[in-house]
């Protein structure tokens, strides 16, 4: 029976691709695949916590396919950005997220879109998981009017609903995140704020000030340190007297999580969210992850680490491969199905890149807009006293 279905599906797929139409891959889909499975996940080190997340995570087929698609989208989007940057179509700063996909996707799987999130400048992945489209992200990178910030923000300054960027000053986003959490508590809507920063930022004084206030006032804030082992060109050992970032919150309970495993991240986030929503105050998560690219596009990324190290992480711990292997070895999806997702993702990225390179730049009369909100139109001085420009809210 299975073999016959396979043959039928192959024939149908063949005709589907000839027609060029996207056709749901045959009746093979639902009958044959495992609808869900339980996976062992790494134990999280805990700090001032009774218990960490469970040691097993249940993954449904739908969830798996969705995580796979989103992580692959982020991966391909970042690689396309690399390409466009080298062609000088993207300029300025560009900090790529490939390697860290499990963090963004796992976190979003543990919270709701109605929750809030803020991060630093390595933000393209989060812009996507928080509701941005690849099209508007890429068009923002290329500085076009169809960009998510109308071309005015660039790589580091993308925003969506309940996503507060995209922040260029290291560490500054952390007090901001606690402030969002304060508003959540104040408005009583049972929402929380996920507040991300890197291992480099973890030594910033303002973060410790924030820990103190968030804890005193029991703010519903999940602090997350994405530890990718390097703050620009400086390894964690050279920057931090203590590299146990999950303990640095001192009086704030913490957990250290395998950031390359989307399930581990999800389960930890669920635990953290539960902690916050039950009024216990802030909690801290350290995600151990890795970035394949250098700090930014102007950093080759090999003067402070070896190519071997990068290659080792790629081959042993790649988040997308890990999920793929899990799903395939548990018969939760087929190779062809995942390949088809790859093809769809590639097409989405190509379309987005096409849009991002052909959409026109913002109009000059947008130059002075968006200075103030809800204010009457005003005059703005141009480069000389005779040039008076118009600014609308």
């Amino acid at each position: 029976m299975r073999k016959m279905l396979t043959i039928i599906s192959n024939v149908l797929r063949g005709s589907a691709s000839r027609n060029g139409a996207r056709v749901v891959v045959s009746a093979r889909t639902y009958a044959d695949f495992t609808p869900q499975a339980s996976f062992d996940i790494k134990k999280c080190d805990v700090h001032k916590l009774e218990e960490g997340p469970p040691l097993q995570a249940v993954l449904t087929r739908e969830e798996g396919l969705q995580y796979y698609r989103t992580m692959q989208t982020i991966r391909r989007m970042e690689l396309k950005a690399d390409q466009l940057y080298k062609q000088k179509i993207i300029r300025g700063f560009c900090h790529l997220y490939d390697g860290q996909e499990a963090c963004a996707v796992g976190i979003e799987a543990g919270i709701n879109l109605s929750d809030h999130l803020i991060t630093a400048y390595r933000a393209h992945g989060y812009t996507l998981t928080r509701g941005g489209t690849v099209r508007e992200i890429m068009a923002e990178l290329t500085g076009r009017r169809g960009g998510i910030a109308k071309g005015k923000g660039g790589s580091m300054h993308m925003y969506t609903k309940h996503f507060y960027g995209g922040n260029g000053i290291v560490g500054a986003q952390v007090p901001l995140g606690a402030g969002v959490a304060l508003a959540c508590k104040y408005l009583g809507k049972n929402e929380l704020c996920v507040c991300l920063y890197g291992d480099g930022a973890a030594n910033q004084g303002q973060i410790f000030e924030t820990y103190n206030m968030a804890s005193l006032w029991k703010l519903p804030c999940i602090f997350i340190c994405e530890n990718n082992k390097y703050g620009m060109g400086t390894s964690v050992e050279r920057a931090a007297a203590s590299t146990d970032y999950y303990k640095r919150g001192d009086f704030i309970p913490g957990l250290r999580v395998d950031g390359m495993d989307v399930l581990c991240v999800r389960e930890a986030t669920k635990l953290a969210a539960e902690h916050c929503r039950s009024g216990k105050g802030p909690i801290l998560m350290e995600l151990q992850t890795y970035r394949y690219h250098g700090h930014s596009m102007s950093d080759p990324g090999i003067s402070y680490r070896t190519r071997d190290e990068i290659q080792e992480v790629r081959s042993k711990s790649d988040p997308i491969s890990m999920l793929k292997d899990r799903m395939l070895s548990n018969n939760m999806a087929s190779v062809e199905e995942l390949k088809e997702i790859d093809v769809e993702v590639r097409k989405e990225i190509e379309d987005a890149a096409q849009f991002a390179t052909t959409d026109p730049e913002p109009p000059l009369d947008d130059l002075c807009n968006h200075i103030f909100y809800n204010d009457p139109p005003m005059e703005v001085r141009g480069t000389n006293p005779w040039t008076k420009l118009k600014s609308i809210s």
Partner: protein
Amino acid sequence: MTAPVPCDICIINSILLLQVTVRDALNQAMDEELERDERVFLLGEEVAQYDGAYKVSRGLWKKYGDKRIIDTPITEMGFAGIAVGAAMAGLRPICEFMTFNFSMQAIDQVINSAAKTYYMSAGLQSVPIVFRGPNGASAGVAAQHSQCFAAWYGHCPGLKVVSPWSAEDARGLLKSAIRDDNPVVFLENELMYGVPFEMSEEVQSKDFLIPIGKAKIERQGTHITLVSHSRMVSLCLDAAAVLAKEGIECEVINMRTIRPLDAEAIETSIMKTNHLVTVEGGWPQFGIGAEILARIMEGPAFNYLDSPAVRVTGVDIPMPYAKILEDNSVPQIKDIIFSIKKTLNV
């Protein structure tokens, strides 16, 4: 003066001229001052093992080691404070801010701990420190990374604020800043780092110093005075070259120092040309041009002006990212030419 021969080393009249980029000039100045005085050291993000985020400190860590070239964590308020403390206790630190945008995190230490201490202690406690790094707009780095801090630091008594343009400026002014016993804010420009300039043998000497507080006339002229600092000096010279073809001769003054302002040089020039246009990359309100114009109003040169003095500045908005918007947010050569012609009423 004949046009320079396009080769790296030109021997003209037995004077050895080198082409040196601003970056290399800064690097060599620091190298020589580190060698000259044991108490001088450099600290900042990525200055040591990474060779500097913009490669300005290339090779220094290899030569001088961990004690003299220190990589800091990303903690500006902390390491700026540490640098000031070290200066108070007898060392001569060079504190690098990766860009001056990040100095805002540390500005309390620069102003309240460095700038004011000699005064507050009635001469007991000096603070021989240099804060240096790139300032102002770059290319495509958006709002949080493009601000010019010349006016903010220039506002404060107790600070010296320096803004070099050429490689010669970079070299001579950085050496002076390091040897100065007072806090000096040294505003570099990322877009100028790679620009080569001719450097004479005299400038290459180890004790070549440019005095802080003295402007330089880069181009003599008779019809109008252009006053500028840092990268905008290049644009003024370009504008002057275009206008020379129309018979308008601009005198271009390179401020070199923001504080103390060389008002005398500007006044002397205005008494000759009777017209003034200032050019800066920063925002107009309460800016460098605003201060210059106020000083001229209050001083002897006012009576020599044949038309109101005018400022060419950045547009009064946060820096946008998109290229077309960014290009139109900073002065262009055509804006300078336009303002000159309006001022001269031609």
